[in-house]
């Protein structure tokens, strides 16, 4: 029987620091056959093993287009992530996945695409932003609104700069608390919604960030007239197994790992009814 708990071995090809507590790890599966078979879509996640430290779930933060490596952007925050951040290029880890469902793509063709990210909530959105931008002719417009606590907490600085200059994409940034040298917007990410023109009935929005940010942004979006189906988010939970067995990620009648992690606001509301 196929053992879904058995990790594939992967090597760290590159480590790129993002902020003082986050970094992007570029991984490549060691076995060429497994490498070829590892096909994923934006929104999916993997269970990453740092052998000896344990296993934890991380969203894949790069587009799978045209490359045989993939990125995991990881904040140093616990046992597994501390151990991962100690590792350098050439280090070996274990990977299970890709797991979970993915962001809709074909389904939102022709729409105005809005991304709202908070802090490290930009990690799961990046592959979708990259894929949507690559095929931008298929969409009406692309807007990225991104906020972090301070300028030092902004991740993907290089990409943010590119996105701000690229044609065919609008990208606005904000920070909750400014700092010396910061001349951009100050305020929560929701305030950026007032700074862009959005054709709400023909738009979908992908939201990801800390729970409190999601709550407020969803309120703002609902106020603007976004339907519950047009607000799409990806949830995070303490997913131990990633395949709907251990039950750690259960919310109401759903497993985040298996039924998600991508949910519409309508689905999320229905799940949360049994939690709050």
């Amino acid at each position: 029987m196929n053992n879904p708990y058995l990790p594939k071995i992967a090597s760290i090809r590159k480590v790129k620091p993002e902020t003082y507590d986050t970094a992007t790890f570029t991984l490549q599966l060691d076995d060429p056959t497994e490498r070829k078979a590892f096909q994923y879509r934006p929104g999916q996640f993997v269970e990453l093993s740092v052998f000896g430290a344990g296993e934890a779930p991380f969203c894949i933060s790069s587009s799978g287009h045209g490359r045989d490596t993939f990125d995991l952007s990881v904040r140093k925050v616990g046992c597994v992530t501390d151990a991962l951040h100690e590792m350098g290029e050439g280090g070996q880890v274990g990977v299970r996945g890709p797991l979970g469902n993915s962001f809709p793509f074909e389904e939102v063709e022709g729409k105005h695409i809005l991304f709202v990210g908070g802090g490290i909530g930009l990690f799961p959105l990046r592959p979708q932003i990259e894929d949507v931008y690559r095929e931008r002719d298929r969409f009406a417009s692309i807007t990225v609104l991104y906020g972090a606590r301070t300028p030092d907490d902004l991740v993907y600085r290089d990409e943010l700069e590119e996105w701000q200059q690229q044609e065919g994409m609008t990208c606005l940034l904000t920070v909750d608390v400014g700092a010396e040298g910061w001349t951009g917007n100050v305020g929560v990410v929701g305030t950026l919604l007032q700074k862009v023109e959005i054709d709400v009935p023909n738009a979908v929005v992908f939201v990801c960030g800390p729970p409190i940010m999601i709550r407020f942004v969803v309120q703002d979006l609902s106020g603007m007239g976004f339907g519950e189906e047009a607000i799409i988010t990806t949830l995070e939970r303490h997913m131990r197994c990633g395949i709907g067995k251990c039950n750690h990620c259960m919310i109401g009648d759903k497993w985040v790992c298996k039924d998600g992690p991508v949910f519409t606001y309508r689905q999320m509301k229905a799940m949360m009814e049994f939690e709050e």
Partner: protein
Amino acid sequence: MTARILPHERIDEFVTRLMQSAEVVAPRRVEVADVFYGPISSPGEVAWDYGTAIEPLKRFLLPQRETMLRFSTNGGIKVEAECDERERVFLGVRCCDVTGVGVMDAMYGGDTPDPYYMSRRERSTIIALTCLQAPDETCFCVCCDAGPFLTKGYDQQWTSLPEGMLVEIGSERGEALARANEDLLAPAELDQIATRYRLAREAEETFGDFKSYIAGAMRKLSMNEVDPEVWEQAAMRCTECGGCTYLCPTCVCFTVTDRMNGSQGVRERHWDACLNNCYAREASGHNPRPERGDRLRARFFHKISHQWAERNGRQACVGCGRCVAGCMAWAHMPAVTEGIRRGVMT
């Protein structure tokens, strides 16, 4: 697949034959009164007259602590999966516990089968033993479609009649086992089958006060109509000891940890309990269910909501009564279902 009679004087021979090709797990008296399911070394150890076992069969299919992987980090990482390929016969299992295994099958099987569980399960034969009277005052299988007699879920179901065990066949595996031992068995007569149905009806009437009105609670839980105070009141009582989850035949959550000795390591899984404060807590410190009432609600929702019953093929309480026996705070299944129904914990 017709029923047989196994005369009482041939039972030991039947069990001896079972033991030749498999590990036989049966109810055994451990102390004067305590009965646990455990491997037997002779047919005489089976406590045929027992009431209920202190623990369900869960730990034999999902051990409390189990090695999933072995790995070495010496000169390139190598990982190997563990596999338990023991043949087992579970003999004399109470109907509630057989039903519990059915719920585990739904949870651990499905479209992503768990290889550790399934490896054990596929090598298991289950011989149920019906209850001729309510074995314990805490039993409420009659409220849960899980006993005292079963109509499915077993390989064989044995009922003690004066002339021997009536052996009902519930699967191909159960039939094959009967065929292999046909020299010990006789075909059952129609009046013996009739006796079985009379005994089942009489047994049902011996169940006591521990009614659990699952259906009423299920409706309110599933429709989100439970008075929030019920969870607060239940939380005031519950001490979060986790006893109910460990004793429950269908509480099967686990957590995973790595353990190292030099360059050699194992990945183990352990039973976990959704009632524990740290169960859903994330590395960031965020806890989606910070209050005990939140966790109790999540547990009962998973147990008996329509939503999860639909996913698992039935609701997950089998009425074994172990949470009643084990809870020191009166926050067990019948107490909470009654609380849900009345809108207040009494």
